């Protein structure tokens, strides 16, 4: 059992939790992920690590409530326990030789992008963060990005906060204005990462994306997380989660990601009904 030592609601659909997991905290690196189960018989949920405190022995996760299992996780309170928490899994993001980086975060992906911004900042690189959300209500971690970046551009789809528009527009403007990035790192919905890659490709700027496909074990055992990268079969859990964005087959990944769409939708409604009943 793993204790939730802190819980904070970041937006109506996004929650932060610090989990007591000293062994994971000791090893965790930005870019790696964990797998958790809320209850006995629960689903194994992979979540990229949003931060860690080696001294306190805690690991930070920030998750969006998108399905039954995340709804159940969100129903847990500070001081309560979850069944399982294993990691750190996957490879850490490579930071060597990068002196100037653009970090692009979309939605809850920003929560995973933040530790990278912090890491590069700590290493003395120049960090430009471009973070995008649907509307002002969903904006998270703005202050933290400001603290870890030399420049922050906040975008919303409807213009209710920051600038109106997509993260790709802001990225293109920065590049066109003469900013020379050693690398662009994009973390967010698959469709966003696909378009970030489309934006940077003509400029030939190295672009890394973080893939988060369906998986079970996270150790290379099931092969469910397979994606096609440069025409080759890769397992996101052990070969990634970071990949060269120019090589990833995004269309295939997007299609694979909705394999259980109907099951998940049904399960989510069922769980929400259950949770609401408990509240009454």
């Amino acid at each position, binding site marked *: 059992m793993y204790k939730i030592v802190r819980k904070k609601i970041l937006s109506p659909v996004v929650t932060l939790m610090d989990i007591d997991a000293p062994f994971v905290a000791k090893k965790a690196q930005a870019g790696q992920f964990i797998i958790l189960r809320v209850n006995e018989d629960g*689903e194994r949920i992979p979540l990229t690590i949003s931060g860690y405190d080696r001294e306190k022995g805690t690991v930070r996760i920030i998750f969006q409530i998108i399905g039954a299992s995340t709804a159940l996780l969100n129903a847990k309170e500070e001081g309560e326990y979850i069944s399982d*928490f*294993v990691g750190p*899994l996957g490879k850490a993001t490579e930071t060597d030789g990068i002196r100037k980086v653009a970090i692009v975060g979309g939605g809850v992906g920003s929560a995973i992008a933040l530790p990278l911004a912090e890491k590069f900042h700590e290493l003395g690189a120049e960090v430009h963060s471009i973070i995008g959300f649907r509307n002002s209500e969903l904006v998270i971690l703005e202050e933290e990005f400001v603290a870890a970046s030399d420049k922050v551009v906040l975008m919303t789809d409807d213009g209710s906060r920051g600038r109106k528009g997509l993260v790709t527009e802001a990225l293109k403007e920065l590049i066109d204005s003469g900013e020379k990035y050693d690398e662009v790192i994009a973390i967010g919905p698959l469709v966003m990462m696909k378009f970030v890659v489309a934006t940077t490709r003509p400029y030939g700027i190295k672009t890394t994306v973080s893939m988060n496909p369906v998986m079970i074990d996270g*150790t290379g*055992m099931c092969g469910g997380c397979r994606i096609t990268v440069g025409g080759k079969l890769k397992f996101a859990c052990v070969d990634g989660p970071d990949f060269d964005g120019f090589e990833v087959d995004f269309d295939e990944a997007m299609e694979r990601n909705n394999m259980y769409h109907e099951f998940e939708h049904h*399960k989510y409604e069922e769980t929400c009904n259950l949770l609401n009943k408990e509240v009454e």
Partner: protein
Amino acid sequence: MANMDLKKTKMPTMDPLVRSRNFEEVALGYTEEMALREAERCLNCKNMPCVNGCPVNIHIPEFISKVKEGDFEAAYQIISKSSSLPAVCGRVCPQESQCESKCVRGIKGESVGIGRLERFVADWHNEHFNGNIEKPVSNGHKVAVVGSGPAGLTCAGDLAKRGYDVTVFEAFHVAGGVLVYGIPEFRLPKNIVEKEVDTLKALGVKVETNFVIGKTLDIDELFDMGFEAIFIGSGAGLPRFMGIEGESLKGVYSANEFLTRNNLMKSYKKNSETPIMHAKKVAVVGGGNVAMDAARTALRLGAEKVYIVYRRSLEELPARREEVEHAMEEGIEFKLLCNPTKILGYRNPDDKKDRRNGFVSGLNCVKMELGEPDASGRRRPVELEGSDFVLPVDEVIMAIGTSPNPLITSATNGLETTRHGCIVADENGKTSIEGVYAGGDAVTGAATVILAMGAGKTAANAIDEYIKNK
């Protein structure tokens, strides 16, 4: 009086029509009368050929003698001296090619049903046992075991019995390895594995789940934590794919993923949080035990038609006879001398949002014929030109083998591996690093439960010697 019947006492099984729609155990086990009758078939040979056929050298005639006397607990004690997992072995060991293949009764007629008797004795014990196990006196030495599959559990049990302080590290949230994620409930009920693990815990073995060695902790850190020796039994968990077109379509699974969803995550249960496809027509590619398990699982999940697609003939089928027979009884169709060349997917050109887009719609196969024997001695299948045909299926499960997982070897400096990624270990399980031993599929590549147990046992002896002489 010896029972001179040429045939084994039959073990009752559930009706194929009933069982193919549920996940309950297929083989029902002997009653006391059946066990006594079968035990009487053992001639108690002086030279005990059967014992040499057993990878863990269970004292077979000795335990069967106790069954004859009706002293089932004494029989259990004899088995458990050599085997840490009797209820498991009695169910999944390929006895026909091991102990039973050496049985004198098998020369004229059928061999003694050693596996069935072992299973009976273990189940009898589990049913009647009061739970009190005397913990061995501690010798103060700590040993770490990586992986809680058959190799790891055996090694842990054998060392614990000698007083070692053993900790088993498991990556998943439950112990058991392939016994819980791979072998289905209908062949090996999970409460039986749980009981065997509980027995080891009662002996003092500690089980730490959610620890991925190579990630959460590495081998050097285990030594720093005071473990004097380490046994690696991390198995061969990496699934292989064929490399044909369409393997990324929705509805294509590795057998590992399909079975793990079903067995470990219990997705066959109605209220499970983990999804699995309930396909109508399923093709399982491969001919081993895992392929049989996957096919029979697909059937139980409600498939109307399940095919085994195998590129050689029935004779070469590597699965156990019993499993093949069970699969056939349940109505699984064998497409032999067939090889998949391409997986076809559904694509609606007029509607990009059609929910069926990207799902499997068929398996393109080509017929094969057997040519000259290859290096393995089996006749090599050769493609029959122009024999392409399409099997109309909506799910394809690849059960064509697994490779060792590189998580540990890539994170451990100086741990020698073969070209195929298997850990190099000598006949005692000793690796290229002092104090590190390995066994089971991590060393041999995918093999059987009992061979892994044998390796775990051998390594336990070697570790005992190593620590004593340090």
